[in-house]
């Protein structure tokens, strides 16, 4: 090691500001938790669909509500992904697969796309997706994401745009 040839002064740490106790022990400013849970199937027979509760808790100032809970179905996740792919500059993560094979009659076995196992797998995939997306600094600028997470209904006729004024 060459440390023996260098004086202690030349490799000493640079002077820094001490962290205040308030900063050290305050809750971190990056708190963001989104759960996709409580799947419920609505309707009867052919017109059934499943939706999930998307519950969000955060202390990020960019989100208007610090706590929100909305119900969303798969097609609305697909809508969000499409909006983000078009408007934001991020590479949007993939959604869990569509249930195409399961929707054909007499195929897949069990309850098809209302099968408990399938719904659980899908729920996990949707949770991963929304956490990845909502944590991305550029996605947080998009109106579609805020509407998806914090408005009770998704208005597909909305005006796309950015949330931040700068």
């Amino acid at each position: 090691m060459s440390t023996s040839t260098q004086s202690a002064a030349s490799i000493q740490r640079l002077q820094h500001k001490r962290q205040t106790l308030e900063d050290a022990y305050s809750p971190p400013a990056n708190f963001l938790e989104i759960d996709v849970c409580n799947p419920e199937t609505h309707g009867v027979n052919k017109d059934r669909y499943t939706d999930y509760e998307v519950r969000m808790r955060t202390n990020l100032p960019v989100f208007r509500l610090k706590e929100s809970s909305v119900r969303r179905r798969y097609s609305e996740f697909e809508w969000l992904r499409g909006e983000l792919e078009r408007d934001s500059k991020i590479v949007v993560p993939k959604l869990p697969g569509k249930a195409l094979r399961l929707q054909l009659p007499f195929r897949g076995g069990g309850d098809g796309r209302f099968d408990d196992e399938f719904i659980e797998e899908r729920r996990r995939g949707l949770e991963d997706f929304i956490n990845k997306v909502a944590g991305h600094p550029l996605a947080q600028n998009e109106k579609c994401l805020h509407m998806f997470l914090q408005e009770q209904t998704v208005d597909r006729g909305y005006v796309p745009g950015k949330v931040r004024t700068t």
Partner: protein
Amino acid sequence: MMNFLFGPSADLEIHLDGSDDRKKGDVLLDSGKKEACPVYFDGEAVSGKVNIRLKQSKMEHYGIKVELLGLIEQFSDRSSQHEFLSMARELARPGILTQSCCLEFEFVSVEKPYESYFGVNVKLRYFIRVTVTKRLNDLVKEQDFLVHTLAQYPDTLGGIKMEVGIEDCLHIEFEYNKSKYHLKDAIIGKIYFLLVRIKVRHMEVQILRRELVGVGPNSMSDCETVAKFEIMDGAPVKGETIPIRLFLSGYELTPTMRDVNKRFSVRYFLNLVLIDEEDRRYFKQQEVTLFRRRPNRHRRIAQEQHQSQSADTAQPVHQQPDRSYFHHRSAHFGAKSPAAASGRTAANADGANTANNNDDNEAAVSPGNSDNSSSQSGESNDQ
């Protein structure tokens, strides 16, 4: 050498004077093998002997000459070679050699403007070449040697201090103690967190080497991560300072080479990378100049001379931190057309980097590893 019936008529051997006393370094030969060769500096004489050992009773030749050459070889498909240094001496006039002999040569005050370099797409080498001109085929022997270029900068030059960030998400202030480091130096720095609204998993410092060969359409660029050094594991909060202490002597580095003979450049960058929970990378590249310092003995003599001359020592300049922003280059997000995130971002980024080439100091957010197949700007994906 192509005398199929009788084999080579003589063996040539070049021996450089003082090679036992000189510092040695590794030279990468054309064959791919490494050879330890003596190191020379600019202005020094290069002298030695050529041993010619006859394999037959006599050898007729049309002249023996010795050359000192400096060559830049580009490994592109054109494989161009350029001699930037060429000196020649005649060792023997045309005649007949009846016994093995030893011929001496000396090149005085040889200007060696560039340092030897063995890179990915380009090579710069110095060597002695002996040629025995014969009727059918010449006998040729080459002996490489290394050249090092030395530089000296005063210790009191300012370091690098900058504020970088993504608006409302991540603001840091980073500082490196110098902007020019010698090859056995230590990079002492710190990262101060002003705002942390993302979930950082860890932070590392990388040393990048960028080799640029050629100009215009034929130019080739190679970027290599020479070192990766984790400086923080875990999530920081506002007000925390993370120290950096990175010793350069542990890595294979060369001095910064700018526009060597207008053919190639070798530049070094410090890359500060923050990785968040979703494998998104936030990075800021900063060019640093690396140089080779004079050996200890010479440096102490020079320092004493300098101290006796200078009236007062300059105080280290405390720079106000430059304001800059992580640049949202959409190319890093996989979109087709690059566009700046906001006019203000671009203006600040340009304004902050006055001392450095704007093209080379970039900062960006890149998508997580799971989402992109190739990452931009030379980041290597940790698999």
